[in-house]
């Protein structure tokens, strides 16, 4: 009950006012921003990365980046969009790292001599790295992000484009493809 009330109060607090307070040296004000957005950011990171541990790491990195670049925040912008665009970049970095790791293990796999020695590592790494959600796995990171922002946050295509750093038509196409793939996958699941 108390938590719900505090959340309602938090949502009413103006982000820009909180940022101004942070910039004036009131570092505890940043906690309010974190508390206000951490749930949404974690949800987005989980949807993009499909893995909770990675999602938490990425969110922490994103908030640290936000804090260190708070002075560069454009007050004409929406803080949530700014946060999401930073988070999206961090997610892509994480996926790139993951791909490199998978490529590395694949190379090791090819080397027959070292295959036995690394077999256990390959299996454990891939099980934790692969996306948990079977349907989301079929979408690209851009499509997953676009879908999350559209379905959960109600973003328009131009807002999605601002986060993905692409034009509104491109964002619309990503979203369309995502919705199409999901529908097909859901129908297959149901059948």
């Amino acid at each position, binding site marked *: 009950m108390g938590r719900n009330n505090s959340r309602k109060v938090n949502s009413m607090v103006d982000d820009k006012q909180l940022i101004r307070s942070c910039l004036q040296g009131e570092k505890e004000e940043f906690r309010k921003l974190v508390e206000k957005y951490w749930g*949404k950011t974690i*949800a987005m990171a989980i949807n993009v990365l499909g893995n909770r541990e990675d999602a938490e790491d990425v969110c*922490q990195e994103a908030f640290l980046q936000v804090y260190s670049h708070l002075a560069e925040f454009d007050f004409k912008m929406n803080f949530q969009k700014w946060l999401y665009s930073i988070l999206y970049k961090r997610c892509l970095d994480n996926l790139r790292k993951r791909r490199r790791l998978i490529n590395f293990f694949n190379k090791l796999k090819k080397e027959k001599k070292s295959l036995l020695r690394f077999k256990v590592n390959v299996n454990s790494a891939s099980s934790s790295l692969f996306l948990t959600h079977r349907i989301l796995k079929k979408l690209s990171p851009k499509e997953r992000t676009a879908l999350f922002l559209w379905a959960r946050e109600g973003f328009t295509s131009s807002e999605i484009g601002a986060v993905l750093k692409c034009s509104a038509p491109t964002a619309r196409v990503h979203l369309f493809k995502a919705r199409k793939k999901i529908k097909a996958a859901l129908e297959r699941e149901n059948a």
Partner: protein
Amino acid sequence: MLKCKLINVLFYIFPLKIWQDFLFRSHFEHCLSCQQKIASREEAKTILAEESQTENSDRFWLTIKTKLAQTEKKAKFAFRPWLKWAAAAALGTGVTIAIVWLFFLQTPAENSSGKSPTQRFKINYLKVENKPAQAFIYKPQDSSMIIVWAEKNI
């Protein structure tokens, strides 16, 4: 239906985003049978993780707070960017001065008497009774006098 299939093929044949967006806006957005082939917002929500599924934020904030403190500590001890440039500029200036001094300003060392090489006393060859002789040159301290001692070779 045939039209829908054709447009769908055209959508994937030309993967230009502007073209695909044009097809989406002109056909897929309005066509009822195509609309049935794309997931609605509610359907999409069913497969997406949501905010309420996540735990409380206290642990998360504590980790961020610790990391922020670490970053601030590092920043305190870290070089300011301008300081790096200043150090590089100082080093560059020092190296330039050393090069100029070595190659352009340094003159050949003068002898101890302070005279120029042309004025310096020099014996190339010494003969006594038309035969080569040994020469010993003495220069007493605090005097400009030079004594030459010649000795016959036996």
